[in-house]
């Protein structure tokens, strides 16, 4: 069944034929991050795909994956182009290396999961938090609820660990 919802005034939808995304976001809605693991090569992948990008395997199952990692790169948006985000600038879009499967199948690879920096409750983070985060910052996954069957995986600063000094854009 398809999903139609609204988030920050933006229409979001998942088509009923889009089985991979329906399953991915259904797990997120339960605040339980799952990725597909290939039944042939046992490698995880992100975002959801039809076949295995490592071995063309056809069969995969959804497994729980720990939502912890470190910021690999980021952008800090000051001029939002989508009306939905104009009230929230500056906001961060983070590219996060999951700890799980980091450096596999080759040293250059990782499960790099996109998300905004948000509060632990899943709201876009305020300027003070935005200014604390850079490459290397340890983050943990939280979820922004959108609709039944649809929550967005997001990132918040992991306060349970000692933070390395992050690398920030040098004009700061």
């Amino acid at each position, binding site marked *: 069944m398809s999903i139609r919802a609204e988030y920050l005034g933006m229409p979001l939808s998942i088509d009923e034929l889009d089985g991979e995304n329906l399953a991915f976001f259904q797990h997120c809605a339960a605040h339980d991050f799952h990725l597909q693991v290939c039944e042939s090569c046992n490698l995880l992948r992100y975002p959801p795909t039809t076949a295995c990008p490592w071995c063309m395997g056809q069969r995969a199952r959804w497994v729980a994956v720990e939502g912890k990692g470190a910021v690999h790169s980021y*952008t800090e948006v000051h001029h939002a182009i989508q009306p939905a*985000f104009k009230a929230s600038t500056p906001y961060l879009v983070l590219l996060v290396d999951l700890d799980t499967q980091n450096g596999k199948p080759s040293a250059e690879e990782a499960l790099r999961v996109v998300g905004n920096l948000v509060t632990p409750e899943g709201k876009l983070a305020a300027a003070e938090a935005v200014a604390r985060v850079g490459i290397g910052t340890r983050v943990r996954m939280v979820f922004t609820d959108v609709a039944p069957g649809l929550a967005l995986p997001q990132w918040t600063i992991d306060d349970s660990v000692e933070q390395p000094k992050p690398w920030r854009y040098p004009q700061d």
Partner: protein
Amino acid sequence: MPLPAQIDTSSPKHLRDKYAIIGVGETSYTRGSGRSTRALGTWAVRNAIEDAGLRAGDVDGMLSYQSGDSTFAPFIAGDLGIRLNFYMDVFGGGSSTEALIGMAMGVIEAGMCKTVVIFRAMNGYSQVRIGGTGARSAVPVTGDMLHSRAYGWQSAGQLFSFTFMRHMYDFGTTPAQVAAVRAAHSAHASNNPKAYYKKRVSVEDVLASRIICKPLHLLDCCVETDNATAIVISSAERARDGRHPRVLIRGVAGRVCKPRADMHYQHGPISTVAGKYAREILWPNAGVGPEDIDVTGSYDAFTFTTMLQLEDYGFCKKGEGGQYVSDGSIRLGGRRPNNTSGGHLCEGYTHGMNMVIENVRQLRHDVDDSCPLGADGKRRHSYDYREGGCRQVERCEVSANLGWAMPGTGSAMVMRRD
């Protein structure tokens, strides 16, 4: 030209110099063309055919690229009375020009047609804004876009910035180094009567402009304009009868991708772009290397894209792109000028085609600057690159165009003067 040492590969050497760009044309670069993309495309194609010294009946193939924002080949051909033996309109942006030139070579080689026009027509400011604001920012977010647009990660600048930022982290590249790209291209544009932005800007001006999304300042980003551009491709043999010195195609690489083109950030290093792969096709196909190139057209949707590509195609060592673009090398008068028209940062935005047009004119030694015309209709170039002066590169024999769709996808081409 003295041909450099051939690189031995399995590349199709028999296609080197077999095809030529025989005509180029464009409309003016404006904001508010007041015309449909069909009208813009029609005039650009007509200008390119006239530049080639051809008539409508001499053209029988047409290719175009667009992203749901333009007209289609049959309309342009119909308007100009061109009867087509082949046409194809493909989806795509900045990695298209060089790739479609390769396709044109292929369809002529296959005997499907004899002369192909490629066009790109767009109202990138007044209709579908290329920066992503307006109609494009309001489209419903569905399916795979839920992993990108739902996070306010949608425009080209936002999508590419992970690569740009990580290059700074990996190699210590500075904002001032990449800002030098804008300074250089603006100096080139000041000698280009067609350029939309003709004012010279400094590194300091770039760094003082407002942040769009880090690490991009406003002046790190290209201009949005309305325009159409077109080029005519035929066999080098047919080009012998042309109006201009022959500009021969040495080799092409088209839409070369990093692994996981769908989400290329899954593969690293993310501070490396598709040029790392494209160069393994481009240089062997062309039988030349970076050291043989006199002028480059490295795509400048952003200052960073120019730097990243020059680095990954091997014009400098990996990680030294910031140094290369800021040491004067890429300026007119430097050892290898880049985007002598001012490129997308200053001349106008055409998804890559104006950078090919500029290099064709450079190789003809007939770039349209402010130098006086001689009795033969050719310019008498002064090679004085001060503001308002010349922009012809001296002894320009070989060029490289480096097209960019995104960090994970690129196309490239080497041309030479006969």
